[in-house]
């Protein structure tokens, strides 16, 4: 696909494709890792270095994010034998991956280091539950939290639901349409041997699962898992010597927000999400538009979050997200598959990094499905997407990741096959 080069951009054009993701690493996606987040993090980082074909000691920059539920670069670097020229541990969850990749590019461009590893390590099921259950739910309520937690308004699903409900009211979005996000992602997960949930679900399964927080059924909510993920980024000219086809970073928007992002829905319309603003940075920076994208990774903390972002980044008209996600477009074999790994709804949860990892694999044309390995050690993809089969998107060249923190804040990244 030809990529325009003469678009007016806010990012200097010389940064397009100048940096690449060269290594990706994961632990298993499990519940009950029986390991510390420190052990999980080093496991993922070692896998990412091996995947890139570099020594862990070649890593000289490190970034991580957590919500006081993980370990820090301080421990990771020593445990993988790396001496760092730069590191930073940030607070945050969803939307951090793309934003931190942007920071990684910035610090390398500033000459501060050469090869940055990003990691997210969490026991999101067995230690600190993302949904806020367990010890987190019983902590005293103080200060500004009196305007939210005192009303039993605390977990992500509870905090986001006013946006979801209002979307149904304003646009006639139906529960059946939204349930298709889970259905489609479960089909993808059934072709992903490492996914935590590999079972295929139907619309009826979703709608007959118990209500958690109306409009969310249990199966509208993502899975909580224990795992770590890691990504290694370096300059594209160095990437050429590494093991895999690099995923070139075309453009990024990081933690781009609506006005008044304090979760009190004062700035409207409340059905509008951060992507409404991020799209105006993402597409000009990348020099491509929604029509140029072969696969998306729209963050699916909930079925609704994928839909809302696809809408506000312009993959369909505002209000037509329900139709878009139930049309078949987002399926493997469709025009623009979304979350081909099964995403957070099925594969596992690491606050967005696993969706970037999936798109890197897709751009390498090396999705780790059950297709047979050829003599070169690469999978011979069949493009037969039936259960247990292939999940490689055919001839994929350009992807978009749409990261979600909450309705107010999002990040995004366009990558292309190097």
């Amino acid at each position: 696909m030809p990529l325009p080069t003469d678009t007016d951009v806010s990012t200097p054009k010389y940064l397009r494709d100048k940096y690449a993701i060269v290594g990706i690493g994961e632990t298993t996606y499990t519940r009950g890792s029986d390991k510390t987040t420190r052990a999980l993090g080093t496991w993922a980082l070692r896998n990412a270095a091996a995947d890139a074909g570099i020594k862990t000691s070649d890593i000289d920059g490190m970034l991580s994010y957590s919500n006081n539920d993980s370990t820090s670069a301080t421990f990771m670097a020593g445990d993988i034998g790396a001496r760092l020229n730069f590191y930073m541990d940030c607070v945050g969850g969803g939307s951090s991956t793309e934003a931190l990749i942007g920071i990684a590019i910035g610090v390398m461009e500033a000459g501060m280091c050469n090869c940055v590893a990003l990691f997210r390590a969490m026991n999101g099921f067995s230690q600190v539950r993302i949904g806020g259950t367990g010890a987190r739910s019983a902590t005293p309520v103080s200060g500004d939290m009196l305007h939210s937690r005192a009303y039993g308004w605390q977990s992500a699903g509870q905090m986001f639901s006013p946006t979801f409900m209002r979307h149904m009211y304003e646009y006639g979005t139906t529960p059946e349409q939204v349930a298709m996000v889970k259905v489609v992602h479960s089909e993808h997960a059934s072709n992903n041997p490492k996914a935590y949930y590999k079972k295929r679900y139907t619309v009826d399964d979703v709608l007959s699962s118990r209500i958690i927080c109306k409009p969310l059924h249990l199966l509208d909510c993502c899975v909580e898992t224990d795992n770590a993920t890691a990504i290694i980024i370096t300059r594209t000219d160095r990437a050429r010597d590494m093991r895999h086809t690099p995923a070139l970073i075309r453009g990024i928007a990081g933690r781009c927000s609506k006005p008044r992002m304090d979760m009190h829905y004062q700035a409207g319309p409340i059905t509008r999400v951060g992507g409404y603003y991020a799209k105006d940075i993402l597409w000009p920076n990348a020099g491509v538009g929604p029509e140029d994208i072969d696969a998306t990774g729209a963050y699916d903390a909930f079925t609704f979050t994928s839909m809302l972002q696809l809408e506000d980044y312009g993959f369909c008209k505002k209000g037509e997200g329900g139709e878009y996600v139930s049309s078949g477009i987002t399926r493997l074999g469709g025009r623009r598959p979304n979350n081909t790994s099964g995403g957070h709804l099925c594969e596992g949860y690491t606050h967005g990094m696993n969706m970037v990892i999936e798109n890197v694999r897709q751009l390498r044309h090396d999705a780790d499905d059950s297709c047979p390995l050829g003599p070169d050690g690469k999978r011979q993809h069949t493009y037969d997407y039936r259960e247990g089969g292939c999940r490689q998107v055919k001839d994929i060249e350009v992807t978009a990741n749409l990261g979600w923190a909450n309705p107010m804040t999002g990040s995004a990244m366009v990558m292309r096959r190097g």
Partner: protein
Amino acid sequence: MALQGNYLGMSLSIDDLDKENITYFKHCAEHDFHLQKCDDCGLLRYPPTTGCPWCASPRATWTAVEGKGEVHSYEEVHHAIQPAFKSHTPYMVLLVDLDSQKGQPSEHEALRVVGNLTTADGALAPPDMVRQVGIGTRVRMVFSDVGDGLSLPQWTIDTGAKQHPKPWRYPQE
């Protein structure tokens, strides 16, 4: 002085440095809803802040605001996360557009005040009341008293108001 309270077994507190929240909740304790009104641009804001979100002025005056409005969106929690709410499901979280300043400073903005659906005396609403409320329901503010100088604003059905014949509710009951 710091404020402390206890609500459904939850410990609530506001540090004495947090002057904005202390003033807000003290007015609530008198069952007299007040918001900060910017001394420069004249706009009200919710929740309490240290500066005006529209003009950045730090100067504001606490001003009485009528606690009436319409449900802009809602959710119905069936699986409570916090132990305090476990025995009160399903409970409703309402996002209410106040009549005051609705559509200002731009079309899609409003003072959207959160609260649970409660009875007229500020107790969490029973299931049959929950089923009556949806987007468009007219509500009025009531208060749950939770400590000395500390009350939470809440919402109850405004029985004196003209109601939509059928407020919008999620299609699956």
